[in-house]
């Protein structure tokens, strides 16, 4: 039987992981991911999760241990945040290049310096070129649902790329809300045991993660590009299979009142909840505003985004990240991939509060762009005294 529990996104991720039954869980605690590592340690200690829980000495080690375990042919899970993800950087490429279908939870947090434990999305966005898929959750329910789906997507033999399930630090990781926790029977029905296509076995020796000369490297990288592009169809299929078992419907993007919208906001993660509330208020006043929530940041669903926003007069792209000298990354990728009239907004860096009034201001700036506001706008920046 499924049951409703009032829990945080970190707890939701841990509950999902428990039901997906990874056999090796190497985790290093870091704020605001820490409670994921604690819940999983408790599950293992209580015998609720039959896994090897490895207490590693750093995030470089936790992801390395996950690569090793996945190379040995078992399902594995790890989780991190911010500086920890940055420390994993080198091995993130290895995990993707070796095609190990690891699933990782990432509590989105700002990067130092200045040191901050609060939320933005710079950490995972900065790992966009590693070959990992990235799914951004709006709430704890999505965090749970995305972990379960991430295993099925990553482990598909047409994909075999690792997945990152991203949850906004503190906003999701440390607030509680009702979450529908599925039954183990339903998860087992949806997610079959992991079947590796190649793994380390003394009876059938092979080498993984080998040295390649210039005769082979480019093909291996091209394979990854094909897998990442192809992952979009696999995600659509897995979303459908998930809906059949659990009744909750997902896609690469979520369209919220976009059909007739003149202004469409494009955003990722928990901020989408605030935006929906503002849109409902503006709609009551007759303003045609909509939201396009990007769930799958990698693979990048440019077709789905364009399909949803092409009818709008103007769009606003909200980024909780900054690539210095060029602006928000999602804004720039959308501008690069499609011909749309868009304004970019940098907001919420290092935990800076984003209020409904800020969102209303963004709608206004997008509707009436000036030469200054039609490119990159910083929202909530304090003015110099």
């Amino acid at each position, binding site marked *: 039987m499924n049951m409703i529990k009032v829990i945080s996104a970190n707890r939701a991720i841990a509950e999902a992981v428990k039901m997906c039954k990874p056999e090796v869980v190497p985790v290093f605690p870091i704020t605001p991911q820490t409670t994921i590592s604690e819940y999983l340690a408790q599950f293992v200690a209580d015998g609720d999760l039959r896994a090897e829980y490895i207490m590693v000495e750093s995030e470089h080690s936790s992801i390395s241990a996950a690569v090793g375990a996945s190379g040995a042919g078992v399902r594995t899970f790890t989780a991190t945040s911010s500086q920890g993800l940055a420390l994993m950087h080198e091995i993130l490429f290895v995990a993707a290049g070796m095609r190990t279908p690891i699933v990782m939870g990432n509590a989105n947090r700002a990067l130092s310096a200045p040191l901050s434990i609060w939320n933005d999305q710079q950490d995972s966005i900065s790992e966009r070129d590693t070959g990992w898929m990235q799914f951004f959750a709006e709430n704890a329910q999505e965090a749970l649902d995305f972990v379960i789906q991430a295993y099925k997507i990553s482990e598909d033999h047409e994909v075999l790329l690792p997945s990152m399930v991203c949850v906004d630090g503190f906003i999701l990781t440390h607030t509680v809300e009702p979450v529908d926790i599925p039954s183990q029977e339903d998860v087992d029905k949806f997610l079959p045991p992991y079947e590796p296509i*190649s793994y380390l076995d003394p009876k059938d020796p092979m080498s993984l993660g080998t040295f390649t000369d210039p005769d082979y490297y480019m*093909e291996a990288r091209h*394979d990854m590009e094909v897998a990442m592009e192809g992952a979009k169809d696999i995600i659509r299929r897995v979303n459908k299979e998930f809906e059949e078992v659990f009744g909750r419907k997902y896609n690469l993007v979520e369209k919220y009142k976009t059909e007739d919208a003149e202004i469409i906001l494009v955003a990722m993660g928990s901020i989408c909840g605030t935006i929906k509330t503002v849109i409902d208020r503006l709609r009551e006043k007759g303003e045609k505003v909509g939201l396009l929530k990007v769930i799958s940041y990698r693979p990048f669903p440019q077709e789905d985004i364009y399909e949803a926003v092409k009818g709008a007069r103007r769009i606003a792209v909200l980024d909780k990240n900054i690539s210095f000298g060029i602006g928000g990354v999602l804004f720039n990728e959308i501008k690069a991939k499609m011909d749309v009239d868009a304004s970019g907004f940098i907001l919420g860096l290092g935990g800076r509060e984003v209020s409904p009034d800020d969102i209303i201001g963004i709608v206004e700036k997008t509707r009436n762009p000036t030469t200054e506001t039609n490119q990159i706008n910083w929202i909530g920046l304090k003015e110099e005294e």
Partner: protein
Amino acid sequence: MTSVGATVKEPGNSVKNKTGSWRTFKPILDKEKCIDCGNCILFCPEGCINKDYDIDYDYCKGCGICAEECPVEAIKMERE
């Protein structure tokens, strides 16, 4: 690509990687000068010289140790 993740599925296939392509200088043995001491055979780190003093250029990387160790300078390193 036939192997996902550049996995090498059969053991013992490093012979397919002809490391001789890395060579810049090629050892040329003058068998007239050779005194059959065996030094080059013993010192070659790649095992590329057989008992008849034939050099396997498929795998010789051109390190030049054989030429260095030859007591009668029977081996010359020539640019490829």
